């Protein structure tokens, strides 16, 4: 075997593709691996330009790169810093590394290219980069460490969580991250990892660079070497501060709810919204209805409603469930354990899922309004009783008024009859004095009738104004029994008086005016004055005066001893009055009377 033959065998046996080309770039020799890698049979490559093995886009620039090699031929890798590609017969490309070696031959300097398909290597590199980027972008800290605790890798999340940079931590010991009281933990972790165990979601605490303690969840897995020997550990650390905070907030909110639910003075129920089965009931409700809490749990809340009120309750609840109402609030009866009804105010609301608005829970507050309701009912009864009493009283009052009017009417009628009898008697008697006496009696009876007439016309049937009464009374006396030239003037103040005052006063005026008419005007002309006015203090002053001849001796004697005088004395006494008379010119009688007290 000559030297060339040996060279050829060596090339042929090389594990890489080998291509030898001459200074013109034509292929002089290829090996079997080259045939495999590029997909051409040897016969198709030999004598062809080496550019056939390059992607078409690179072919044009290649001859210019090829020439400098021949000017300074020496072994070197090709295309420093550039990515190189081969092209198969089928047109597909693959990444390559190429080593160039000058070969002295009889035909001059050749270049032997050793071509390595680096597809797999590239893929491995890409995979590693991919993994590294996953590690880098993880929100969990991922820390690689040796079994002695020396940190070998430190991702970005580790920096975020612990505050140290990779530069600060790589090569340092993980014990730096432990709060002092937790240092012992590491020995246990290392021991377990050494045995090939994993640690998953171990919740503990670590220390931040600034000294504060961070709640974390740890997962630790062993790192094996190619022989399966544990050489280190990969530690994944998650900061669970927020989760802890959320858990604490949730626990607090649950505690608050429980406290408000359990200690509420108002009855409360949490029930399944569809079946209305009670999931939870509080003590207030249990004691309101006479059950224990455990007896209520599991019952249907609708069963607590008084049977007569169930239909309305169901209808309202259905409306709530259908979303037609925000809350179902009503006053209705519940039924106690002993079967008696109790009035309650029920407020039911539904808790719904935020997204689908599906009801999750029915929350019902039940307030005991039984006492209030009974009070309202009692009040209503009392009011009705009162109305009935008022009605009866009103009816009684109307009855009384009717009766009073009837009595006044009768009195008036009877006085009219008496007057008629006297009139008839007066027509029968011949004696002038007897006629005059009868006329006097008729005047007095008229005064009595007039009082009853005033009373009948008053709104309260008890009092009336004295002024029009005195006016009518006085004028009637003068009109009925005096010559036309006698006139009367009446001055009185408005004053509400009753029967007890009006009758004696009316009779007094009748007596005094009649007296004047009888004695004062022998000429048949003159004036009579009647004046009733209040004085200082609670005194009324009645003055009856005339401008007549004054009392004759006869008249004066008569005035002291006659029937008229006796009547006047009695009436003045009845009124607690004081009488004084003055004579000439005319006669003036003054009677001071205490102001009547209104009852």
């Amino acid at each position: 075997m000559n030297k060339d033959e040996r060279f050829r065998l060596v090339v042929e046996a090389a594990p890489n593709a080998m291509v030898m080309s001459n200074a013109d770039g034509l292929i002089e020799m290829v090996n079997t691996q080259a045939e495999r890698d590029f997909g051409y049979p040897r016969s198709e490559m030999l004598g062809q330009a080496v550019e056939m093995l390059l992607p078409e886009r690179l072919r044009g620039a290649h001859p210019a790169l090829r020439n400098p090699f021949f000017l300074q031929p020496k072994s070197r890798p090709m295309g420093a810093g550039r990515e190189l590609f081969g092209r198969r017969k089928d047109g597909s490309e693959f990444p390559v590394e190429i080593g160039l070696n000058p070969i002295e031959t009889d035909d001059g300097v050749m270049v032997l290219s050793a071509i390595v398909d680096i597809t797999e290597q590239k893929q491995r590199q890409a995979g590693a980069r991919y993994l590294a980027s996953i590690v880098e972008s993880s929100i969990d800290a991922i820390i690689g460490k040796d079994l002695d605790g020396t940190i070998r890798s430190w991702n970005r999340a580790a920096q975020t969580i612990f505050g140290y940079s990779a530069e600060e931590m790589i090569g340092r010991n993980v014990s730096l991250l432990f709060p002092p009281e937790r240092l012992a933990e590491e020995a246990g972790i290392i021991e377990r990892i050494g045995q090939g165990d994993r640690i998953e979601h171990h919740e503990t605490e670590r220390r931040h660079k600034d000294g504060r303690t961070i709640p974390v969840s740890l997962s630790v897995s062993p790192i094996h070497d190619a022989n399966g020997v544990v050489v280190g550990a990969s530690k994944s650390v998650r900061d669970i501060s927020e989760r802890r905070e959320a858990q604490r907030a949730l626990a607090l909110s649950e505690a608050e709810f429980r406290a408000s639910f359990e200690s509420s003075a108002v009855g409360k129920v949490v029930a399944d919204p569809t079946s209305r089965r009670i999931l939870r009931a509080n003590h207030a409700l249990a004691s309101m209805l006479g059950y224990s809490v455990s007896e209520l749990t599991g019952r249907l809340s609708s069963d607590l409603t008084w049977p007569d009120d169930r239909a309305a309750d169901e209808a309202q609840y259905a409306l709530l469930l259908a979303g037609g109402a925000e809350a179902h609030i009503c006053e209705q009866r519940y039924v106690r354990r002993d079967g008696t009804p109790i009035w309650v105010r029920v407020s039911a609301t539904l808790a719904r899922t935020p997204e689908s608005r599906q009801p999750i829970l029915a929350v019902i507050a039940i307030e005991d309004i039984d006492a209030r309701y009974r009070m309202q009912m009692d009040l209503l009864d009392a009011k009705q009783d009162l109305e009935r009493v008022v009605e009866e009283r009103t009816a009684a009052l109307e009855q009384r008024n009717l009766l009073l009017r009837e009595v006044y009417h009768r009195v008036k009628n009877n006085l009219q009859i008496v007057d008629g009898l006297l009139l008839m008697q007066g027509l029968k008697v011949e004696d002038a004095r007897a006629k005059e006496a009868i006329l006097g009696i008729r005047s007095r009876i008229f005064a009595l009738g007039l009082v009853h007439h005033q009373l009948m016309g008053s709104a309260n049937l008890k009092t009336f104004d004295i002024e029009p009464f005195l006016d009518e009374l006085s004028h009637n006396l003068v009109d009925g029994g005096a010559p036309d030239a006698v006139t009367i003037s009446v001055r009185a103040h408005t004053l509400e008086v009753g029967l007890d005052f009006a009758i004696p006063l009316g009779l007094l005026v009748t007596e005094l005016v009649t007296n004047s008419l009888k004695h004062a005007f022998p000429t048949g002309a003159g004036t009579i004055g009647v004046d009733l006015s209040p004085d200082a203090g609670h005194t009324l002053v009645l003055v009856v005066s005339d401008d007549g001849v004054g009392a004759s001796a006869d008249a004066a004697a008569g005035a002291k001893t006659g029937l008229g005088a006796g009547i006047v004395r009695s009436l003045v006494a009845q009124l607690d009055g004081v009488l004084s008379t003055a004579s000439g010119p005319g006669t003036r009688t003054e009677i001071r009377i205490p102001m009547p007290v209104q009852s």
Partner: protein
Amino acid sequence: MNALRHCVLIVDDEAMIAQLWSIHMEMIGLNVCGVAATAEAAIALAQEHRPALVLMDVRLKGEADGIDAAIAIREQMDSKVIFISGSQEPSTLARMKLGSPSCVLFKPVSDRQLHAAVRNALDPAAA
């Protein structure tokens, strides 16, 4: 319409009062053609005697009162009516107007009031 007669019909269910009015009418010089105690009797007597004046008490025995009688009488003839009432209920006063009375007197009625009312009813121009 036949002429009215110069006489007075007295209507009152109290016999003594009816007699009293009769005496007064005689004092004035008027002839009393009848005395009735009920509305029905009053109407019948009025139809019979056609009085120039009716002295009519408002409250009478029986269902109908003096106002009903006055209305019925005045529908048939032009008699003057004087109501003599014991009552002054507003509702009664309002109904009295339906009888178109010449005058309304309230008990107690004085001699002078009655005489003046009668004279005025029979001869308004002279009053």
